[in-house]
């Protein structure tokens, strides 16, 4: 999970898609025996001013596109908690939380692995736990066990971190079929 703006993603896809659809349709018009609807200037007589405007416009498009591409995926963090104190700054890494939960689930035969990450959302740091479960796992007790481990974490930290728990199937199930278990 990242902080990417999903509405803007959709708007970009919509605008580019509509433009491409319209452009493709214009190229296909001669197939229907119709002339292009636009009165295009005759080839090789493009005014230098037109060319300059197009160059500048495309340069802006390139800059905006590259800017959007390189700013994706922001918002991830490994520091769940930063507590400034007199002796220094205490930080809690997301791996500590993962180890704590993994320890609590060590005797649960349904759990293959536990991973963790942190991400910033709306001014809060969220702990994201990813539990890979075996086939036919006992989901209720798995969630209860994670909840208990998080309760212990709450008690240690004396604060309530927002937590996202993702439960995903192991590799064998994914390869078989995405939403099916036999």
């Amino acid at each position, binding site marked *: 999970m990242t902080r990417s703006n999903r509405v803007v993603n959709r708007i970009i896809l919509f605008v580019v898609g509509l433009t491409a*659809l319209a452009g493709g349709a214009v190229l296909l018009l001669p*197939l229907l025996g119709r002339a292009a609807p636009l009165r295009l200037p005759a080839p*090789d007589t493009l005014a230098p001013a037109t060319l300059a405007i197009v160059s500048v416009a*495309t340069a802006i498009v390139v800059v905006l596109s590259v800017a959007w591409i390189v700013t994706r995926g922001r918002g991830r963090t490994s520091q769940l908690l930063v507590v400034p104190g007199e002796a220094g700054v205490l930080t809690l890494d997301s791996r500590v939380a993962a180890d704590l939960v993994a320890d609590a689930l060590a005797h649960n035969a349904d759990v293959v692995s536990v991973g963790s990450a942190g991400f910033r959302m709306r001014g809060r740091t969220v702990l994201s736990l990813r539990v890979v479960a075996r086939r036919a796992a006992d989901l209720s007790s798995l969630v209860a066990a994670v909840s208990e481990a998080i309760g212990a974490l709450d008690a240690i930290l004396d604060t309530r971190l927002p937590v996202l728990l993702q439960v995903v199937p192991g590799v064998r199930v994914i390869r078989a079929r995405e939403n099916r278990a036999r």
Partner: protein
Amino acid sequence: MTEPRLYRRIRRRELHRSRSGATVVTLVVVALLAALIGTECALAALGRPPLLIAPGRLLGLAVSGSAITETAGAVVALLGAVALLLALLPGRRSRHSLAHDRLAVVVDDAVIAGALLRDARRSAALAPDRVAASVSRRRASVRLTPTSGIPIDVAAVRESADSLLAELGASPSVRAVVDIASKGEVGS
């Protein structure tokens, strides 16, 4: 942002695709095309020879109606339609969120299917390979293959599956449908 609102937001984002991959691929193509056209226009404005094709010739080619431009038009229109669909469709992932008061829980449908499978095995007292389960957005289907001559209590299996689903509190809500194979199999 309060915790329930934050959790709602997290769950919604986890249940839908971000489309970031599609957007990045689209923008890479757009940037490359724009860079080519911009460069050619700049070169033409300065009276320099073109890199690949002069803008005037490109424009002439576009309205010429040759087989190449028509093929290109079809491909571009198709890619545009795909981008439009990606933008407009809901982009749901095969996941459900579960009700929980401390955590935001999001579970892949295959894991819910696995939990139903485990439950059905027990309530129908069948061997593991006699039970199959799958979960879609609104429906969970459990298929049982009975041992020949030994009937299965369908109502009990359905009740057990429904109570498991109710306990999990999946959202969007899921209803269990239990099917029994008309032909049983011999042996355990």
